[in-house]
């Protein structure tokens, strides 16, 4: 999956990929104070693509709000919500809206799920549907944070650590391996990194084609940009 940190105030974005074996579960957001947890599990292509690269995508997210007693499991197949002591299942094939005391859900048929957890966080999960008979690809999900301002200062995770903002400086722009993607030096979190100007796609407005977001790409699973190592974010279960 590709991660994008859009920083409109700087008129800039940062991006990195995290790849690991299919089946791995990563922690994306963890806020011990408000009891919020977002974990995601990756899946690989149906078979190894001709170039030998193993690409992975998120196909399942587990979301917990301990304080509100809410649990959500969202996969490419369906959406399950646990609240008030019972599980409710929603289908991607329906357009549905559920308003509860602690959580609001809005499913747009075969396209997106918007989740608002009371007084804490709002996000949208996009469903990317792929032709069923595609030889390599399969359905996958995207996770976009819409509002995180009520989360605490202790929020962390692969995405959560950036909710505090990120300071960096980029300099020494120079030709890169590909003419349209120059390299540069980035100073961030005390590291000096070699980064590449490129772009990644934001699918919120156009789920099929996406929109290009120019960004500084941080190589090697975001090493130097993320706290610690990508493997530090691996967790054993979805919840």
């Amino acid at each position, binding site marked *: *999956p*590709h*991660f*994008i*940190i*859009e*920083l*409109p*105030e700087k008129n800039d974005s940062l991006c990195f990929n995290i790849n690991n074996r299919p089946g791995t579960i990563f922690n*994306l957001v963890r806020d011990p104070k408000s009891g919020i947890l977002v974990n*995601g599990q990756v899946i690989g292509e149906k078979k190894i693509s001709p170039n030998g690269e193993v*690409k992975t*995508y*998120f196909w399942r997210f587990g979301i917990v709000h301990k304080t509100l007693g809410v649990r959500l499991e969202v996969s490419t197949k369906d959406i399950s919500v646990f609240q008030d002591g019972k599980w409710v299942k929603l289908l991607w094939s329906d357009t549905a809206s559920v308003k509860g005391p602690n959580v609001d859900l809005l499913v747009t048929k075969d396209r997106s799920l918007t989740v608002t957890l009371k007084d804490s966080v709002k996000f949208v999960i*996009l469903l*990317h549907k792929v032709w069923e008979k595609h030889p390599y690809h399969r359905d*996958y999900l*995207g*996770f*976009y*944070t*819409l*509002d*995180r301002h009520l989360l605490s200062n202790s929020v962390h995770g*692969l*995405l959560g650590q*950036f*909710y505090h*903002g990120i*300071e*960096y*400086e*980029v*300099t*020494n722009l120079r030709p890169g391996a590909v003419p349209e993607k120059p390299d540069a*030096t*980035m*100073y*961030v979190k*005390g590291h*000096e990194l070699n980064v590449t100007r490129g772009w*990644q*796609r*934001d*699918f919120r407005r156009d789920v099929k084609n*996406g929109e290009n977001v120019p960004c500084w790409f941080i190589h090697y699973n975001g090493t130097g940009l993320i706290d610690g190592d990508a493997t530090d974010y691996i967790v054993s279960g979805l919840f």
Partner: protein
Amino acid sequence: STNEAKVEVYSMTVDSTVTSRFAHTVMTSKALNKANSSQEIFFEVELPKTAFITNFSMVIEGQVYVGEVKEKEKAKKQYEKAVSSGQTAGLVKASGRTMEKFSVSVNIAAKSNVTFILTYEELLQRKFGKYEIQTRVKPKLPVQDFHIVTNIYEPQGIAFVDAHANFLSNELLPLVEKTVTDKKAHISFSPTIEQQRKCPGCDATQIDGDFIIKYDVNRAETLGDIQIVNGYFVHFFAPPDLPRVPKNVVFVIDRSGSMSGRKMEQTREALLSILKELHEEDYFALIQFDSEIDSWKESLTKATKENVDEAMVFVNRISARGVTNINDAVLRGVNMLLTDRQQKRLHERSVDMIILLTDGMPNSGVSAPHLIQENVRSAIGGKMSLFCLGFGDYVDYSFLDVMSKENKGLARRIYEASDATLQLQGFYEEVSSPLLSEVDLRYPDNAVDFLTTNHFAQLFNGSEIVVAGRLKDEQLDNFMVEVFGQGLEDDFKVQGQASPQDWNVMYPDDEYIFGDFTERLWAYLTIQQLLEKSKSGAPDEKANATAKALDMSLLYSFVTPLTSMVVTKPETEDGTDSPLIADKLTEEQRQQADRLGTTVSHSYRAQALYPQPSYFVDGD
């Protein structure tokens, strides 16, 4: 300028009158549409950033269309109305470091004439011991009737006048005529159409660039020169032969990642040459910072040759890394100066200053600009001056500008270019030779009011202090003037009488110079100072200063960042008219234009609000 040869610019005149440093320039261009159909004619000129446009008018077929200065909000409504009906309006663009560009276009009928007249005024500032009048001329083709004429009237007497242009060839050089008498100078440059041509018979012109006049006045009086004209007075203070005061200077140098490469190299070069210029009685310190702050030594060091040599080794090792913690770096400098003062390590009569050089927004430690400003102001507590150099296009200039002005200093933008080293050195030279500190110019309360700023933290060598005000009684014959300051050995104290001069005796052959110049000079200076005040201080003070500046801009017809000049274009074929607008950019708008490499079309552009940051993960 014209799109086709069917439009001929047949006359171009730049006429400047400088009276006691106050320059009034009128640029006139006349063009003829020789075609059988109507044509769009462009008028594009550049004027100094420090100038305010005071009039813009057009004459078409004998009909005069005069500009009117309006409050920006009101002009905006007129402008928006024009734009919504698909019409264009005038544009002001940033243009290089010292000039800004004004351009409009108008549709002219077949075989018709148009005359554009732009007037602007500025108070010339003395730097490095001279005043400078810069005129930029860029006719696209040779012009039949071409003149640059400047008349300078300086009652103090003219010390020297130097005129040159960057387009002057050996053939054109003798055409610059210069006549200087005791109190008056006349400079003119009027090449014929043939002399303007790049080569005989060809259409290209060699007149393209800056015509610059530099001059200074005589300075005999310690009190300075006080001129009283038509109920207003102006006091120019730059006494001769004052010894320089030793200084204690802390250089706070940004070495964050974004400084790497050329900027860091130029900073090192400039620092090396600045260190060499230090006087032996000066004290200095070097602090370099990214997110970490390292100082060369823990206290200020006397600028002996050995110490300077050692410091140069340190400077040579400064290299870029990390992010930017301006707050702690400046505070380290402040504390160093305060401690050394407390421990009496520094000369008692010496001036304390911090020179901060940075290229970017603070993003480590305390990073909110208003908090840094607050911290620095409270740490400095009026005890030293802070000068800020903002390097490059991405620096938050207004943050540095406010912070300097709150601490008896000033800020300067350093443009990223091959001469950045010279820009850095130049700024240092400007502020590095204090002659007096805490200068107070006092006038009797019962004689004058509406004074411009009359207290100055320093007087630097080669500069000049200017104070203006209004006489309470126009018939007043004289009043007492006193100046106090702190010099090298003693307190500087001087007093004398100011009395009106008879301009008819001084300039018997000049029937009219422009009689209200002292009042306009006072208004110009007052507006400039109010605009500065509107950037910092308490919210009600800011609002008050803005309101006063607006009132005066309207009253004296100055195009400032608060006003616009509106000229209503003649009706077009569809029976509609549309306004032409002249505006004034702020330093922030200029910087934005530089950064984007585009036009800033007044402030009417919708200001895009930053959306929330966004964090997401997805797949291709």
